[in-house]
């Protein structure tokens, strides 16, 4: 027993939130998903919420595996459907703090519509998207977030499409909290995760992460470490800018920061104050006099 106590002391301090039996995880050396999860664990520990009041939902993908490693009520759903699953979970049990951890392909290629509508409805969940600019899990195909010009297995001559500007889409759809950070920027990331998790309503944090195996290799971006440094050098923090300016494109630094932090009633708040709505809608039968 004594022995055991001693080992306990020297467990990794994050192990209490990990399913240790499942370590090591599947992520490649230096993959940004791991750092993002590390930051998330820091946040969850700091928040002090009873872990039984937390629930994580993931879709499918390398990032989608996060749900399987966090020692919480955790749901590894289908590709693209983490958000509607989380919506049902949250609405059925509002006392849970429900967050989604998934990849760019999962949340914005196949799952883009659910993001849009959950944001619009202001469902009180938090979305962490690890944007590694491609489909890592299936070996590196183009995603809706692959930079123009990048080589992937399905854009062997370079991607001709533009990547979705996630902060802009999130803002256009009504998210109340929108931020973007690099996976290596673990301190700001943890801070931002914290803000997002305690914010009532639909919050969104985009985590830009290197995928050395599937994305970096084909684009000769070097090892995870080299990619991390490259991403660092090619980005700049500009809190509060209009999301129109967060486009990721060649010749520009990627803009990081917190872009949206507003207040509006959540879906559930709306339901409980619905009686106040009576007759307030566009169009007014008396003509409005504004602009």
């Amino acid at each position, binding site marked *: 027993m004594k022995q055991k106590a001693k080992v306990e002391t020297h467990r990794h301090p994050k192990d209490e939130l990990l399913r240790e039996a499942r370590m090591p995880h599947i992520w490649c050396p230096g993959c940004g998903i791991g750092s993002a999860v590390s930051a998330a664990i820091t946040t969850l520990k700091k928040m002090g919420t009873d872990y*039984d009041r937390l629930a994580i939902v993931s879709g499918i993908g390398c990032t989608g595996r996060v749900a*399987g490693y966090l020692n919480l009520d955790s749901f590894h759903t289908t590709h693209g*459907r983490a958000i509607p699953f989380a919506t049902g*979970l949250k609405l059925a049990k509002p006392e849970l703090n429900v967050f989604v951890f998934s990849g760019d392909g999962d949340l914005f290629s196949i799952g883009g*519509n659910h993001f849009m509508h959950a944001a619009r409805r202001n469902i009180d969940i938090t979305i962490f998207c690890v944007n590694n600019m491609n489909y890592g899990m299936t070996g590196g195909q183009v995603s809706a977030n692959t930079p123009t010009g990048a080589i992937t297995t399905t854009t062997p001559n370079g991607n001709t499409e533009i990547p979705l500007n996630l902060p802009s889409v999130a803002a256009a759809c009504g998210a109340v909290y929108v931020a973007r950070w690099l996976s290596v920027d673990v301190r700001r990331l943890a801070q931002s995760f914290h803000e997002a998790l305690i914010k009532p309503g639909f919050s969104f944090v985009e985590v830009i992460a290197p995928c050395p195996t599937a994305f970096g290799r084909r684009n000769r971006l070097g090892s995870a470490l080299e990619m991390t440094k490259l991403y660092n050098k090619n980005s700049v923090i500009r809190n509060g800018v209009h999301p129109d300016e967060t486009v990721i494109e060649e010749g520009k630094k990627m803009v990081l920061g917190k872009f949206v932090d507003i207040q509006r009633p959540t879906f559930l708040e709306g339901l409980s104050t619905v009686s106040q709505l009576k007759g307030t809608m566009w169009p007014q039968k008396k003509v409005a006099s504004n602009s």
Partner: protein
Amino acid sequence: MTSEAVLTGEHFINGDEACAEGALAVGCRFFGGYPITPATEVAETMARRLPAVGGIFIQMEDEIASIAAVLGAAWGGAKAMTSTSGPGFSLMMENIGLGLVTETPCVIVNVQRGGPSTGLPTLCSQGDMMQARWGSHGHYEIIAISPSSPQEMFNFTIRAFNLAETFRMPVLVMADEVVGHTLERVTIPPAEEIVVVNRKKPTGSPETYLPYKTDSSFIPVLPDAGDGYKIHVTGLTHDERGYPGMDAKTQETMMTRLIQKVRKNRDQILDYEDYFLDGAEIVIVTYGSSVRPALRAMRGLREDGINVGLLKLNTVWPFAEDLIRKLAKKVEAFVVPEVNFGQISLEVERCSSGQALTHLISHAGGGIHTPQQVVEGVKETLRMLGSKRTKK
């Protein structure tokens, strides 16, 4: 259960509304859905009624989101339901599979309309019966029940929830446009007379708990999110801990149990009604709204001295395999009126193993058989049997 949830009394309502009332009566408190004719009134009734009983109604952005939300809500502890028709049912298939392997209790109502594709949105068919069985990828067993009247829409929806909670799986209510849209008297009993099954919850210590370990019932005892068990739920092949296991062994263990859960409990799941089977020469096998013209046809035929019985399948899946096998040995023929080109009749044919003739009376959809069509089908069967009548 608030009394508002159970509208005890007599109502002249349609099957869709009756279905919603059944759900409310048995404790459904989450509905995530998307409108589609002829199932829309289920959603509309839930939208009107749920807020008053403390439940949540949400119209999702599509049917995929609807079933996903229902699964999420089920893990949040709610009895949850969605309703749709063919096109939406097709879209739900992937996540019905997720519900099956994660053993999520919920109810999916399909009010069938004419298909394939957009087909005949306002008209009837029974074209999705095999889809209910096989529509999601991978092999699984499913439970599907088939009401034939508004009253059964009420009763069977209650049963669907009870089966879902008992066996921890999605249960399908395979209704059709005629059942959904016909108005008729529906009697809602007092709340205390309604049988309500609630899912079993684990009680042991979270440390030693193995979520997907089961006893001889093959049914796991699972917590809701927030119960302190820190459960991992995945659509990947998983072991008793719920953890992914990417190998044939884990697959075999998991899948065999999932299949056995239904097959070994078949007797508890099966439900049927029979009419004049004793000594019947011909048995009409029927389900859903086809039951109604079939019953009328049966009475007419019997009045004409034809020895015909009727088997009304209330549970369609799992199929009443043993019953048909047994009957096949006794009767000359099965007559199966279906509003499709032969689905349940294939199963009847398979299980009769050549011992009784199986005669499909097909209807392409856009309505149901008239009693006369069933009568003619039986008479044709008699002609087909002709001199071959040897049994007994």
